[in-house]
């Protein structure tokens, strides 16, 4: 049998108890947040909210006490994440640091890096951006050309990173770059560096996306000095490390809940007596979400047991982004409104944002085609 295994998700009383606590916190904290803002999902940015969340102990939840002081289970963390996303909480400031940069440092970072950075992430005060894509290297990450050349005491970095979410308001980037070899040997000679974004020689230019947001950036490195102590893990092992980082990036409920605010608004609009057709379309999407959640919890269980869910995470992301992109289409089939950015009608405004943002769902974090290639490899086809 060739099907890709998704072990039964573990259950946890502690996690369910925590769920109620999180809901109560979100109800109070987000009481005044309108649907159009909730629709921003995990691109919603609010450093105050991130700090408040940290005070509850809900950032860096699974990290060892010495760095984050929580040591909660992966399942408890999963519950917090899905509740935050379902409520449309503005989690963007700390999201990347909590999801992938911190875990990467925990796994590969030096003791000095961990002590310096991790407690500040856990406090909701230190934010990260991802340093992978470049102008000529999108899906083909191994084609990255940004180079760190060895100099006295460290490296001199030159190159350009692109589509860098939150680059203009993050404190650090984990830079994937070449430190040896050449672009011909692809995976060899790549490394990851912990780059302080206030370093001289870094130019950050926000790029307005087609939905009108300025979340992502172009970041140019011109003779930027990075000290030797900034090497993460092993010099030359960047490829394996960055693959691990991508597995963190793809594994969570942020890959199937991005349009949830729109579905909630649709439900509000349809009221308690929807037509049969509305029942059918709403029921179908709800069923999809229930099953995605089961798959996603299975991935959380694999993380909890220290297994590598890279394949399963790719599959959930591919299925999940498809459903995220279907939700605006369902709204259009059921409701006779036109999408209107900034409209006082919340459904209309949320629809507008979600429609314009939806193309990104199956691009960011690995395109649909890349993910399906990973699944095909898992099936033994390549």
């Amino acid at each position, binding site marked *: *049998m*060739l099907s890709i295994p998704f072990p039964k998700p573990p259950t946890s009383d502690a996690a369910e108890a925590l769920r109620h606590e999180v809901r109560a916190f979100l109800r109070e904290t987000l009481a005044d947040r309108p649907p159009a803002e909730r629709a921003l999902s995990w691109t919603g940015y609010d450093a105050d909210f991130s700090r408040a969340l940290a005070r509850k102990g809900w950032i860096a939840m699974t990290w060892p006490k010495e760095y984050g002081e929580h040591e909660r289970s992966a399942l408890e963390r999963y519950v917090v994440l899905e509740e935050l996303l379902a409520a449309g909480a503005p989690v963007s400031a700390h999201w990347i640091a909590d999801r992938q940069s911190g875990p990467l440092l925990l796994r590969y970072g030096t003791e000095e890096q961990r002590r310096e950075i991790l407690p500040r992430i856990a406090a909701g005060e230190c934010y990260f951006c991802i340093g992978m894509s470049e102008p000529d290297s999108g899906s083909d990450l191994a084609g990255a050309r940004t180079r760190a050349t060895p100099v006295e005491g460290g490296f001199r970095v030159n190159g350009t990173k692109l589509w860098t979410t939150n680059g203009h308001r993050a404190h650090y980037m984990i830079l994937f770059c070449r430190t040896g070899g050449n672009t011909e040997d692809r995976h060899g000679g790549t490394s990851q560096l912990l780059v302080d974004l206030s370093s001289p020689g870094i130019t950050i230019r926000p790029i307005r996306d087609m939905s009108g947001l300025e979340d992502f950036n172009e970041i140019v490195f011109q003779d930027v000095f990075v000290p030797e102590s900034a090497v993460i893990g092993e010099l030359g092992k960047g490829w394996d490390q960055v693959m691990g980082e991508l597995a963190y990036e793809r594994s969570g409920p942020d890959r199937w809940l991005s349009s949830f605010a729109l579905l909630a608004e649709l439900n509000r609009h349809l009221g308690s007596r929807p037509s049969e057709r509305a029942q059918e379309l709403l029921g179908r999407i709800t069923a999809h979400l229930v099953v995605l959640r089961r798959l996603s919890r299975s991935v959380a269980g694999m993380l909890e047991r220290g297994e590598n869910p890279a394949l399963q995470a790719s599959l959930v992301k591919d299925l999940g982004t498809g459903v995220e992109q279907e939700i605006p289409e369902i709204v259009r089939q059921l409701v006779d409104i036109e999408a209107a950015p900034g409209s006082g009608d919340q459904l209309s405004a949320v629809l507008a944002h979600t429609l314009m943002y939806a193309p990104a769902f199956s691009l960011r974090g690995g395109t649909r085609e890349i993910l*399906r290639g990973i699944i095909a490899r898992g099936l033994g086809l390549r």
Partner: protein
Amino acid sequence: MSDTTTILHDTANRLFADTVSASELARAAEGAWLPAQWQQLEELGLTTALVPEDAGGAGLEPADALGLVRLAGYHGLPLPLAETLLAGWLLAHAGLPVLEGPLTIAPARTDNELRLERTGNGWRLRGELDRVPWARHAAAIAALADHDGQPLVCLLTPDGYTLDQAVNLAGEPRDTVQVNCALQNAHVAPAPEGFGPQQLQAAGAALRALAMAGAIDRVLTMSVNYANERKQFGRPIGKFQAVQQNLAVLASQAAAAGAASDIAAEAFGAAPDLLAIAVAKVRTGEAAGSAAGIAHQVHGAIGFTEEHSLHFFTKRLWSWRDEFGREAEWNRLVGQQAADAGADGLWPLIASV
């Protein structure tokens, strides 16, 4: 899953693999009954897996017993294992005798209405039951009939009905049963508390969800193997990205169906979680259509022949997704529950399954 269950599943898997060959599937599709294979199921105790031990069964946990249905779906087992499991379970839980031999249940479709009347020292039952699985081979049918607003379980034996044979796409019997018979008191009993037609329909839907998940696993396996073997343009077609992308979609649908069928197995019981089973049935049903389509696309013309085995599984998928409530019907249940939950209750509803 306990060690015992793992052993049982392994044994069943080997038995199905050894006994269900392409020629047996073809014979069954033409209407043949496979008595030797049925006897082996009985001897292994598979057919009474859901009957409690004190009623003479194996008394497995539902989630474990229903794993057998997924395996049977993987192999296309052309025998009423799922129906016998459900009928035995229902009869035993109503305190009625669980007869030996293949059993089946009458789907609680809205057009399947039985009229049950009191007579002097027993009951009379009249009505027509449409699309009863495997009825022609069944030693008994377990059916629900309404009496004064209370659902009663009735044990019907072949002397009490006549039938018109019909089949589904895969040639599995789906007969029309005309009932007009006297029933002794010992063959009529109240259904388990809260268990009515909708619950029976849900129990059947859960079984079909599991069977579909198994058959989807099978068409995925067949398709990947075929893509690795079949060469065109000088290399296996599985090396082409266009084919790989389709097979990746098929694998994703298989994973979703597998997760959905796990939800169904956990929700099965005397007080089944209707929302969970509805979710499982619609999601496996949708996956079934997508999986069958991709499997045929990958197999090309050879998969369209009667000689190739693919159709045994795709025809079952196309049939099973419509049995015990097609997607539209169960989607309406899910959709109304979502509407009842309201905008703020939608997430808690989703997280409750």
